[in-house]
C-alpha cells in the first residue's frame, strides 16, 4: 500500500484557535431602544386618565368571574362540537361517495364564507323564520324557548368552528403516508376502521398545533356571543360600564382576564403536542 501523499504548503493549522464571540452591537442598541419605548408607553398609561382603582376593584367581582366561567364553558363545548363536526366532515370530504363529498364541501363553503357574528345573529333570531320547531308528530316547541343565548352561541360557534376544523383535519389525514392506509387495508380493515385506528391517531400529531391555536381563538371568539346576550366575560364587563361609564377600566379588566387565560393555555398546548408525538423521536418545534 502506498503511503499517504504529503499535504500541500500554505494552509496553516487552525485547530488551536477558537472563534471569537461577536459583539452584536446592533442587537444591544435595538434592545435598549425597545426598552425605552416600552417604558414611555408604561409611563403614558400610568399618567393617562385611567382610574386604576376601578380596574382593581372590578377585577375579581362576582359578575366578572361568572363571565370567565361562562366564556370557558362555551369555548370548550363549542370547540368539542367543532372537532366532532370537523372530523365527520373531513371524512366525508375524503370519501369516494360524490354526494358526501359535495355536502361536505358545501358545508365548509357556507360556514367559512359568512362572518361568525352574522351566523350568531341568525341562530339567535331563528324564530323570525321558524316560530315553531320540532319533529312532526313527536315533539314541537317554540323556537325562542329552545334557542336560548347559550344554545345559539353553542351552535353558532361550534358549527362555524367545524368548517375550519374540517380543513385542518383533512390536511392532517392527507399528511399521513398512504402506505399506512394500505397496510391497514392489507390486514383486512375497512375504510372507516382504518381511519379511526390508524390514520386519525397519526393525523392528530399534525393536527394538534393548529387545533390548539384554534381553541385559543375560540376563547376570544366567544366574546362575539355578547351581542346575543350570552353572559360571557365581555358581555358582563359591558354591563358594568353601561352602568358606571368606566369604559376603558372595564375593558382593561376583561382584557387582562383574556390574556391570563391564553397565557395558561399556550404551555398546555405544548404538553399536548408532546403526548401525541409518542412513538416518534422528532418533536415538531
Amino acid at each position, binding site marked *: 500500500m502506498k503511503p499517504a501523499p504529503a499535504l500541500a504548503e500554505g494552509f496553516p493549522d487552525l485547530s488551536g484557535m477558537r472563534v471569537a464571540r461577536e459583539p452584536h452591537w446592533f442587537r444591544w442598541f435595538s434592545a435598549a431602544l425597545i426598552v425605552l419605548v416600552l417604558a414611555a408607553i408604561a409611563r403614558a398609561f400610568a399618567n393617562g386618565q385611567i382610574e386604576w382603582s376601578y380596574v382593581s376593584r372590578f377585577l375579581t367581582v362576582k359578575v366578572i368571574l361568572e363571565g370567565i366561567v361562562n366564556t370557558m364553558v362555551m369555548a370548550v363545548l363549542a370547540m368539542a362540537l367543532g372537532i366532532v363536526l370537523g372530523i365527520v366532515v373531513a371524512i366525508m370530504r375524503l370519501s369516494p361517495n360524490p354526494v358526501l363529498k359535495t355536502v361536505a364541501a358545501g358545508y365548509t363553503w357556507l360556514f367559512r364564507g359568512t362572518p361568525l357574528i352574522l351566523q350568531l345573529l341568525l341562530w339567535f333570531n331563528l324564530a323570525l323564520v321558524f316560530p315553531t320547531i320540532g319533529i312532526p308528530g313527536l315533539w314541537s316547541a317554540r323556537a325562542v324557548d329552545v334557542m336560548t343565548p347559550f344554545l345559539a352561541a353553542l351552535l353558532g360557534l361550534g358549527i362555524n368552528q367545524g368548517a375550519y376544523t374540517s380543513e385542518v383535519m383533512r390536511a392532517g389525514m392527507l399528511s399521513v403516508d398512504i402506505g399506512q392506509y394500505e397496510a391497514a387495508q*392489507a*390486514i*383486512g380493515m375497512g375504510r372507516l*376502521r382504518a381511519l379511526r385506528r390508524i390514520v386519525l391517531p397519526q393525523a392528530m400529531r399534525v393536527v394538534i398545533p393548529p387545533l390548539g391555536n384554534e381553541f385559543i381563538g375560540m376563547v376570544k371568539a366567544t366574546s362575539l356571543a355578547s351581542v346575543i346576550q350570552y353572559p360571557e366575560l365581555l358581555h358582563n364587563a359591558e354591563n358594568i360600564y353601561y352602568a358606571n361609564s368606566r369604559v376603558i377600566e372595564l375593558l382593561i379588566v376583561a382584557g387582562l382576564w383574556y390574556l391570563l387565560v391564553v397565557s395558561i393555555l399556550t404551555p398546555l398546548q405544548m404538553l399536548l403536542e408532546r403526548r401525541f408525538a409518542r*412513538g416518534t423521536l422528532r418533536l415538531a418545534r
Partner: protein
Amino acid sequence: MTKPLVAIRSVSKNFGEFQALKSVSLDVWPGEVMCLIGASGSGKTTLLRCINQLATIDSGGIWLDGELLGVREQGGRLHRLSEREIGRQRLKTGMVFQRFNLFPHKTALENITEGPTQVQGRKSDEVRAEALELLRRVGLAAKADSYPAQLSGGQQQRVAIARALAMKPMLMLFDEPTSALDPELVGEVLAVMKELAKSGMTMMVVTHELGFAREVADRVVYMDQGAIVEQGRASDVLGAPREERTKAFLSAVI
C-alpha cells in the same frame, strides 16, 4: 388434480393511458415460492397489488382459493363486491411492503395484535401469546414493546412479516421487501423469508435479490412491459434464459 391457489386469467390494468398489465395469465400452486423479477414499470408490483385488491383490475379475473376476487358474476355481468366482502377476501393474503408501513403509534407487539383483535375479533390473551411467538420466530422477542422508530429497518421489516403472518393467511405477498434496507440488514430479512418458505407457506415475492431467488424460489417469473416474458425453474431462467429480453435484463442487473 389439485387446483392452483391463485389463478390469474387475462388480467389487464391501465393507469390512464399507461398499460401496466396486458392480459396476464398465471397460476400459483399451494406451497410454491414464486419470485417475480423485472425492471420497474414491468407490472410485477401491480400484479401483486391486484391480488390483494389494493389495485382494481380493468378486465380479466383473479381467483384465490377458488373464489373470484373483487367481483361477483351475476346474469352474465360482473358486479363489484362490497367493501366488507373485499376486506374479507384480503384476509386470505398477507402483504409485506417495501417501506414496511408499520403503525408508528403502536409498539411492535401492538402492530401484530392489531389485525387479529380488531378485524378478526379474537380474544386478546390468545392473540398476544401468538404474537409473542411470531416475534420469537422472526428473532425479535426482546423488542415486543419497542416502537418502530426505535427499530432498525431490518427489524421493522421482520415485525411487518410477523404482522402479516398473524392473520394466518394462505398466501404471502412480498413487494420488494429488502429494497429499502441498508445492505447489512438485508440478510436478516431474507433469513426470515427462507424459514417461512421452508415451513411451506405459499409466497409471491417481487424482488431484485437474485441470490435469494436462486436459493429459495420454486419458480421465477420475468416480466417486462406488463407481460410475462419467461418463467420456469430458477436455475433455468436465471442460469440459462431463453428469451433475449431476459438475457438483456439479467446482464444489466448482475
